[in-house]
């Protein structure tokens, strides 16, 4: 029993719309905001041109669907506040993610690991691993890479 628990981790499945789904660790999603006030910032990338004010910080709000689809789609009013670190020795950072729906909390075990399908190769630069969930391959993404701007 204890061995099974050790191999199981909690995660959030994030639905970015347009069929784009990915997972992050349970500790990497801080809060979800519904209809936060967003401010646009000029001269910014197509997928990250908005910020919000959260606990006296100005956070970038990133659209994964715009990053991959390059289309100006209407964004939902759900924004997840993610936490990430560039390096374990560096302070944590916060960033907003446009989500199509509320994140789904799940348990993931090692035996769900799978390869990233070719149909989802867009995730390759960001995916650290992948698992099978409800018949779908869900990449686990590195938020620090996503927010690095590289």
């Amino acid at each position: 029993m204890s061995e099974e628990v050790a191999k199981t981790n909690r995660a959030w499945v994030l639905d970015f719309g347009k069929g784009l789904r990915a997972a992050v660790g349970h500790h990497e999603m801080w809060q979800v905001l519904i209809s936060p006030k967003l401010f646009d910032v000029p001269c910014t990338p197509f997928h990250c041109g908005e910020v919000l004010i959260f606990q006296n910080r100005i956070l970038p709000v990133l659209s994964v669907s715009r990053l991959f689809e390059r289309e100006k789609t209407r964004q939902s009013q759900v924004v997840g506040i993610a936490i990430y670190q560039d390096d374990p020795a560096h302070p944590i950072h916060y960033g907003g993610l446009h989500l199509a729906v509320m994140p789904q909390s799940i348990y993931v075990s090692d035996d769900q690991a799978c390869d990233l399908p070719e149909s989802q190769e867009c995730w390759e630069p960001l995916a650290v691993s992948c698992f099978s969930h409800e018949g779908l391959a869900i990449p686990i993404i590195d938020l620090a890479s996503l927010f690095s701007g590289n």
Partner: protein
Amino acid sequence: MSEIHNPHLYVLLVFDGRYLFVPQDEVLSIEIIADVLMTDDGMGTIGWFSGHGLESPVFCLANDLSLLSKVPFGREYFVLLKDEEQPLGVICDEVENVNFKQEHLHPQDLPDVMKTQNSPIRQLLVYQDQVACVCSGMALVRYLSIEE
């Protein structure tokens, strides 16, 4: 007599709902638009200002920092930014001097993910319930020179 540099002093440029701060010591002067000789040369400028012994191009910006070819109603001032070659004007709806230290304003660096090659914006800050941008005068001049 040398000028005293105060890093907390900024000039706020407001145009089309956009709030943009530039360090005060990078601003040459604030002028009125009536002194601009309007032109329609299709070069990005809306006119030229003769002052301080130089001819200075004057630009009009939209909310997204794109160049406008016509001046929207209500813009009465322009800020003349210092530059090595020639000063450069930016037309505004409002202009205000702001001391960041006195107003307890704390700019934050523009997040890496929001940076682009030609962006003049280096920091963001919350001011009057808006998210304002902070630029160096030099970066804004360079940006306008590229856009032009």
